[in-house]
């Protein structure tokens, strides 16, 4: 199962959970499962960047997840070279 680690601020929306394990093949499936379980979270992670096993995606909605993937939802970071 994918292992989702929440930041301090995000824990307010998942009943204080720091880590959750959820069965999901893609990020979009993971989001649906999270939103179903925590209605207060619904929509809040739609625009977040997602770190999957250390790689950070700004557009991760359909990225696949491995059975043991570690997932973080993060702020979008672009920058200004």
């Amino acid at each position, binding site marked *: 199962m994918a292992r989702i680690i929440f930041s301090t601020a995000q824990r307010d929306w998942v009943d204080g959970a720091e880590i959750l394990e959820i069965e999901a093949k893609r990020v979009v499936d993971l989001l649906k499962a999270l939103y179903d379980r925590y209605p207060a979270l619904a929509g809040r992670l739609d625009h977040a960047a997602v770190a999957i096993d250390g790689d950070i995606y700004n557009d991760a909605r359909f990225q696949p997840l491995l059975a043991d993937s570690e997932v973080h939802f993060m702020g979008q970071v672009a920058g*200004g070279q």
Partner: protein
Amino acid sequence: MSERKFKYVGTRPIRPDGVEKVTGRANYGADIVLPGMLHGAIARSEHAHARIVRIDTSAAEAMDGVRAVLTGADFPDIPNQWMGDDEGGIDFGAIAQNCMARDRVLYHGHALAAVAATTTAIAQEACRRIEVEYEVLPAVMDLDAALSPGATILHPEAHVRDGQPSNIATKIVYEGGELEDAFAQADVIVEREFKTPMVHQGYIEPHGCTVRFNEDGKYTIWCSTQGAFGVQMFAAMVLGLDPNLIKCVPTEIGGGFGGKTTIYLEPVAMLLARHTGRPVRMVMTREEVFRASGPTSGGKVRVKLGAKRDGTFVAGDCEITLEAGAFRGSPAGAAAMTALSSYRFPSYRIQSYDVVVNKPKVAAYRAPGAPISNFAVESCVDELSRELAIDPIELRLQNAVAEGDRAPYGPVFKQIGLRETLEQARAHPHYSAPLGENQGRGIACGFWFNAGLQSSAIVSVNADGSAIVRTGNPDIGGSRASMAIMVAEEIGIPVERVRPMVGDTESVGYTDLTGGSRVTFATGMAVIEASQKVVVQLRERAAIIWGVEVEDVRWEDGVAYGLNAAADQDPMPLHVVAPQLRTTGGPVVASAQLSPPAAGPGFATHICDIEVDPETGRSQVVRYTTVQDAGKAVHPSYVEGQMQGGAAQGIGWALNEEYVWDEDGKVENPGFLDYRMPVASDLPMIDTVIVEVPNPIHPYGVRGVGETPIVPPLATVANAMRSATGVRFEQLPMSPPRVLAATDETGS
């Protein structure tokens, strides 16, 4: 990947845009001239915070040569809606209101009306004749005022904290471990508070655009931007238009550093063009650039670090407060995420606040937010090294993150090169060179994520065997050269035989901005993939010529080789294959598109020697060395240029740059004479050492390099100043009056 032998990658060919730029032929944002073109100008607020009671444009409209006058009432109402999570996002309503105020002005210089006229002088005079009646409101000009009880609230309807309207737009928290217990176990604790001023990116070319409106409702925008597709989308959102009606053609760009990732003039010029039926050009003056285009945040950072006597870091605590300007959106998230990411802190807490004030809305600036928090943290690391009597590089090596360590913002680092940069810095002759009188030496490290985002590329081969590569990234830091090198490497032709082009929004697939240190990494991957597809097609053509299967053809270094030893197949170079494209299937064209993950973390270590005149407080950087992990340097000269440029900007931030405000919230130094940026004669030749720890997610190992080099200099210079004067400077800039006052006070 790392074992691949390169022929062109890593070389230093002459830049393809060089001749046009040194001869003055290159067209920048202000260089586009169209028949019948009008000239636009903007009337700006005289107050930092006021309600617009009435705007009378009649005197302006009556002037000969004036063709249109617009105010906020002519723009569509775009609701404020934050798109994104707390740590990063965008509000098109705020962008719209920043381009043209509606009922309130929120900073001195805020646009409140616009004029199109037959000359710039007439347009500017018409702006002066626009009469504005204000109800002046109290201005909130710094963080302390914004957060004090009873403070004037800029956006009472938008930001609520603990049930009360607040100037805090966002609070971000990262924490882990047991902070209080960890500090209780520390042998040494350093705790200090630092302040940095609002500073500008300082690009040489002001914002400028020309817009043409056609009777079919379509707009063409020529402008200086870091992202044509971004301009298209932003302008569409601000004016409530279908993006399909807008074509954006990026011109050459004279610097951006993040400041040209948004829009200011474009929607105004679009409406003026629509109202007049004539093309309209608008160009900011330097004063307007300073007053009304994106600086980066001023900030306040409190840092507390704890370590064991042997140098092991046990805890870090940061509180970061950043000015957003008039609308939400400071880089509070990135400042928080980078603050403690260079070192292992078993217990940590990072709190970061985005605070609105009556100053220009901030825009991205090279590694947004990171230099501010890094200045504070690396200054405290320097103090720890002094308290512990451990060499500053040794202390950093002892605690530096490496592959497998978890960043405070969550993910585990893959292959990274912080330790390698520290080791190279330690081995560099600079680090052991003797210091002169009144000189001091400092070092500091820095980290930046580097972005991925969306990119596309088109590569084609001409009948003469040359190639064209087109991408959607304006070339701000040498991307045309690096794209040409990558095509040359894959196809096997000299770099000079590849012509790189920057496309507009109708000639290339969607491509995100030139920013986030992403272009050589992400767009480069698209170019590599497209070039590899070209090679497949060239093998197919050679197979047709030889009458064999494509599997029987190998392509190497620009030459087709037959694999069937029995056949009579002399190697066939590209210049022989290319003229036969017409008879073997037609043109060879390939495209690629992708949306990769981030470009791989970038780390750097800088060394600075500074000399301070004890009589005047004037300082001079006498030697500066940057060591940075580039993953793989495609064009080392450009990588070195990024490292030197970032260092120079950071040195300016450390020593001289700051907005100076009068008591009414007006910028007193909106020009390069009074806003003191370093020029070539201020700085020594900045030495560069490129470290190459390959990025595992790029075929050549490339990492982003454009932003990391501005992260360490603020602290590097401050640590050198500490060494030279004995004073720990907690406020930037370390300008001569401030240095003199501090050294006089301490008797240093």
